[in-house]
């Protein structure tokens, strides 16, 4: 009964989404306040029914209702309760439902925090979001209904893929989806602006925190995915340039370009049509990502079992969205640009370079991801483009970008006066060259060009990012303190520097070995002695495992004990590697059990990963920077104006704390 309620709730949500997509749009066109007024109500109603549907599916998981095909395929009686809840998005149908839920949440939030905007504009934004909801709800109902019943319910389910039974993986998809779907707000904003034929700076300011929020979640989602792949897949790598990873990385790159061009559009009224284009591209790439993941059209280590019908639906949807957005763009965007100038040594130029380089980087990833598909369609052959290609080509736009960050941050709008490098950037410049050579040489005992360039770039960005916060800290009495916007920018860029540092050191100085070991044997890897002390059987809730106990010593002194496991899950019978990782701030010592090579001999993967934590730390710091920037007061300015207005009317309004 409960699953049928869920199914019915989805159908109701679809009808409300249709209303939400049509009435406010028509109302805005006719300037009809009543019709526009339905936008928020319909959006809220849609949200309520999607929540009901989602709750019904969760309920089916919690009560082990294996008569529901999706539950039978992705759960099992002994699955821990936490994973029963996360299993809701552990497969295709549920993850699309999660996507719909997140879209509904964003829409309701947009409705709530948009009272400062003109009613016609916000009616169009919510209307566009409604049309997107219609597309995804149709997708769920027509091709991927999670509530489908089985004719005969099995006694037990087929279990959740063991790889997904992990806290990191449990929260990775929601994060990623919140990011993907968050770009739909910027997209809806762009469409609404083009329909209105007007792009007010105030509206651009309104969009900025939304886009940055989406970007923060996408950043965290990608970082979590990378971290999970590192400790869970047992290879010890942190990025594989796999199509599914690229699918999430392309919207991130364009989203990053978008938050930078929004700055120019807001502050200077420039790059307006370009910004709209980026907003369209960021969301289209999110949809493309979904298509790539869900259609199984591309060979990927991540690819899920897939269905061409679904791929076709998303491709059609993508086609409709992109085509209509681009037609509207061609028609309306040219009239939006304002005529204003800027000097070549101005912040505008650097943000332009940022955008150009990020777009080139996206094109590179796009090309590398889709080239195999093109080859296959043209029947030239079946090819694959591997990490060596991406590593090489991706660096071309990114390396100049990293160096430009340091300068661009410190330029001023319109025209920069004075010599930058002699002023604020003298110390960062000297520091980066000295440390760029000293760090690889003193700590890792090797110098080569790429390592020095990478380290120099990293130190340069870190030092340049710290200039403003340090100045604010040491400011003379009475001087203005740094604003959250500037501080957030500095911290986000600091994150980029830390990330680059981690990537440089880990790519240059990792030691990766595959060995055969028997209990009692000791191996020396990167100055550490790894002793396999014993192997034993351990029992988990829904798996059995062979656990190795490995003692790590350095110079005869005990460092740590790690316990890598090889698990066999009882239902699906497949083997899983759980790596044993000893974490330090400046290195990881990574041990993974491979296969049994004979009686008591095992293949053991031992890796030394210097500074790998800086990769994820850098991403966290980037996200933190975004978060600080979002709290800037000017994004809340219209709200405080409203408080003042209410005061005039004589109403008692509590001041926000």
């Amino acid at each position, binding site marked *: 009964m409960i699953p049928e309620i869920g199914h019915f709730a989805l159908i109701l949500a679809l009808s409300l989404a249709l209303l939400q997509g049509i009435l406010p749009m028509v109302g805005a066109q006719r300037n009809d306040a009543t019709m526009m007024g339905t936008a928020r109500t319909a959006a809220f109603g849609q949200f309520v029914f999607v929540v009901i549907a989602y709750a019904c599916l969760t309920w089916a998981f919690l009560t082990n209702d294996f008569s529901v095909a999706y539950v039978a395929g992705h759960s099992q009686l002994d699955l821990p309760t936490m994973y029963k809840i996360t299993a809701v998005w552990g497969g295709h149908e549920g993850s699309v439902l999660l996507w719909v839920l997140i879209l509904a949440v964003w829409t309701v939030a947009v409705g709530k925090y948009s009272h400062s905007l003109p009613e016609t504009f916000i009616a169009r934004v919510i209307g566009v979001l409604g049309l997107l909801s219609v597309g995804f709800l149709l997708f769920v109902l027509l091709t991927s209904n999670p509530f489908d019943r089985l004719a005969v319910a099995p006694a037990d389910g087929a279990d959740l*893929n063991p*790889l997904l039974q992990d806290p990191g993986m449990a929260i990775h998809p929601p994060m990623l989806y919140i990011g993907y779907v968050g770009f739909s707000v910027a997209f809806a904003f762009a469409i609404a602006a083009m329909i209105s034929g007007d792009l007010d700076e105030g509206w651009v300011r309104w969009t900025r925190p939304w886009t940055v929020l989406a970007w923060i979640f996408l950043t965290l989602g990608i970082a979590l995915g990378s971290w999970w792949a590192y400790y869970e897949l*047992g290879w010890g790598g942190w990025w594989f340039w796999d199509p599914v990873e690229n699918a999430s990385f392309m919207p991130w790159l364009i989203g990053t370009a978008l938050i930078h061009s929004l700055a120019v559009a807001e502050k200077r009224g*420039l790059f307006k049509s370009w910004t709209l284009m980026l907003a369209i591209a960021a969301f289209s790439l999110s949809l493309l990502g979904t298509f790539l993941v869900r259609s*199984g*059209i591309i*060979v990927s*280590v*991540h*690819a*899920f*079992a*897939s269905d061409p019908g679904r791929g076709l639906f998303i491709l059609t949807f993508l086609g409709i969205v992109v085509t209509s957005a681009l037609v509207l763009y061609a028609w309306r965007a040219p009239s939006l*640009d304002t*005529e*204003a*100038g*800027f*000097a*070549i040594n101005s912040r505008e130029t650097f943000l*332009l*370079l940022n955008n*150009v*380089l990020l777009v*080139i980087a996206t*094109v*590179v990833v796009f*090309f590398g991801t889709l*080239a195999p598909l093109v080859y296959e369609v043209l029947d030239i*052959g*079946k*090819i*694959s*483009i*591997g990490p*060596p*290609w991406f590593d*090489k*080509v991706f660096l*071309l*736009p990114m390396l100049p970008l990293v160096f430009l960050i340091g300068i661009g941050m410190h330029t001023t709008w319109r025209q920069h006066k004075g010599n930058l490098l002699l002023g604020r950037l003298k110390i960062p410049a000297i520091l980066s060259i000295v440390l760029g050579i000293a760090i690889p040489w003193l700590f890792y005992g090797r110098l080569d060009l790429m390592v020095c360039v990478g380290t120099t770039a990293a130190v340069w960005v870190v030092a340049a990012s710290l200039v403003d916060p340090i100045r604010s800290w040491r400011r003379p009495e009475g001087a203005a303190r740094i604003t959250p916007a500037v501080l957030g920018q500095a911290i986000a860029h600091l994150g980029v520097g830390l990330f680059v540092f981690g990537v440089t050191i880990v790519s240059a100085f990792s030691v990766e070995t*595959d*060995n*055969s070991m*028997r209990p009692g044997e000791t191996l020396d890897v990167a100055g550490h002695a790894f002793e396999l002390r014993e192997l034993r059987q351990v029992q988990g809730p829904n798996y059995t495992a062979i656990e190795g106990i490995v003692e790590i010593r350095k110079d005869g002194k005990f460092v740590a004990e790690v316990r890598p496991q090889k698990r066999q899950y009882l239902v*699906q019978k*497949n*083997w*899983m*590697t759980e790596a044993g990782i000893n974490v330090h701030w400046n290195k990881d010592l990574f041990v*993974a059990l*491979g*296969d049994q*090579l*004979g*009686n008591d*001999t095992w*293949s*053991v*993967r031992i890796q030394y990963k210097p500074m790998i934590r800086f990769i994820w730390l850098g991403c966290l710091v980037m996200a933190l920077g975004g978060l600080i920037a979002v709290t800037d007061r000017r994004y809340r300015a219209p709200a405080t104006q409203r408080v003042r207005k209410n005061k005039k009317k004589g109403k008692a309004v509590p001041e926000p704390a």
Partner: protein
Amino acid sequence: MKPRQQRMLAVGLVIVGVAIATGLTLQAMKDSMMFFVSVTEVAEGKYPADRNFRVGGLVKDGTVQREEGSLEMTFEVTDLRCDLGVSYSGVLPDLFREGQGVVAHGSIDENGIFVADEILAKHDENYMAPEVADSLADHVQDQTLGLQYGPEECPTGDS
């Protein structure tokens, strides 16, 4: 700068950037692009002799062999028409198993053995790389019955 000049600058930068990127990209592709070759094509001698490529198929039942305690191992991969000997040294992926789909990177040595430097199996047990599935399609009669060789003989040169 005047708006017109700005636009020219932007367009110019994009064109130069894209041109450089395309050139270097294509150059890099030559070195690091890998072709997928089916086992039958290897038997027919249709494979790049001087560079790495990918080969895929099913791990043939009963062919996985290793000397006790050694990382070196050999197995045969089949597309249910021809077989190919593969040698590999290192840790295998979790889902590597006899009868399962596998993709290997490497090249053919002078003895006609495929020396793999990387072996991939998939996250999901029910999933098979499309290229592997394609290369099998002509030969499988009924997948539920397990490994069934197709009606066609393997072309000459099958070792």
